């Protein structure tokens, strides 16, 4: 594996509060979240239950609910919080610079 590097994912304004967008980079896909408090987080883009884009899911506070079968994860830690998901989601560090969102992958 190469060393982690910061990648520009989107503009701050691209993500509404309490929402999520999809970000594809090379052959990987990520989910970029903005919580109800305006904080940004990032995780792998697919649910750990089946391969389904979490960016289609619903953000509630700091929880993301997968729309496919309603599994839930904690956005901040990636912890699996509701069946059927039982495998945690991988999360990535996020920083904001000049109104741009960067994730470290």
């Amino acid at each position: 594996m190469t060393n982690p590097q910061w990648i520009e994912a989107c503009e701050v304004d691209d993500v509404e509060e309490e929402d999520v967008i999809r970000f594809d980079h090379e052959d990987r896909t990520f989910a970029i979240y903005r919580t109800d408090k305006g904080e940004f987080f990032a995780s792998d883009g697919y649910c750990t239950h089946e391969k389904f884009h979490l960016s289609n899911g619903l953000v509630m506070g700091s929880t993301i609910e997968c729309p496919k079968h309603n599994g839930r994860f904690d956005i901040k830690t990636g912890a699996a919080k509701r069946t059927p998901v039982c495998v945690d989601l991988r999360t990535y560090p996020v920083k904001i610079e000049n109104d741009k969102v960067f994730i470290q992958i």
Partner: protein
Amino acid sequence: MTDNEMVIVGAGEAGARAAAELRAQGFDGPITLIGDEPHLPYERPPLSKGQLCDVEEPAPAFILTKEKLDDLQIQLLSGDAASRIDRSRHIVQLASGREVPYTKLLLATGANPRRLTVQGNAAGELHYLRKFGDALAIRDRMKPGARVAVIGGGFIGLETAASATARECDVTLIEVGPRILMRGVPPQIAEMVEARHRQAGVRFAIGVMIERIDRDQDGYWVKLADGSFIGCDLIIAGIGAVPETTLAQDCGLAIENGIQVNEYLMTSDPDIYAAGDCCSFPHPMFDNRRIRLEAWRNAQDQGTQAAVNMLGVEPAPYAALPWFWSDQYDQTLQVAGLADGASTTIERDLNEAGKLFFHLAEDGRLLSVSGMGPAGAFSKEMRLAEMLAEKQARPDAALLADPSVKLKTLLREFD
């Protein structure tokens, strides 16, 4: 409660979730999960979907792995059926002769496919789909070019038909009722589903009885009441399911379209609970009408709630909004709530994201939402609509119909 022993019969969706929840609730006594299938607990929904048409060798989608079971110290007795419950001695007897004592018992025995009774020399050769082995047997016979007849236009039949077309089979679906998806799905969606299947090349024989099923050297022949014949190499029947109540019935528990439970999922014996496809329960959101569901999330949620209630610490009634999904081709279909008592249906056109239908009672209360669309964008809108129904909201019909009004905004009004 250290001396308590928790026993679950049926290691499927509800049983497995219940076992895990007992631990999650902090119960530290013995938990025994009894299952007659040889496998670890697995999910059934993929059986009619990916597992029939994925190119790779399919494997069951396990709910609990061996490591997880060990970790949670759940004793799984697989490949052994419970054959009798001795309520006075609080013992479950297994087919192997083994006896398992219980303090509280959960019956999560699921349902079995309803068998088609029909004349003909091949009437006994139909395939049914409930277990992993059934899926493998069907999959083996779904060779490219094979002629497949599916009997029953319910979810399992339709998903099987979609999977068969993905395997490049030549598919005919036979439905004796006046339309497909008669149970619980509004006609608008049934039409969309049928159109999608026709586009994929599925032929339909609707509203016609099956007279007999025979086999000769050219394969099977399904004879319809209108005199026509459908020739095929494989026949799969998906004509509903019958709750598995044998054990409950034999030991004298009350039965009413499944094992009868109260709102706490307790049977007529306070030490025995039931959850999932095998039980019928009164639903508080629908005037306590007694219903029985055959749905994956219900099985999970009831298993979880039954586990909590068995421990007796903070028992709560089960009142989750019924929810069901089905995947066919690139489309997903969902139904939340029960539309039976609805007097008005309002359509919301999501354009590329599909369509939603809101079913309102006479007094304006949202009873049910159903819809269909491509999995991604549709699911988010559907979830918001479902949350409106969960709140038993009385939304303004004009706003529901107007796609420029965000459902998230509407939802906030009912916080």
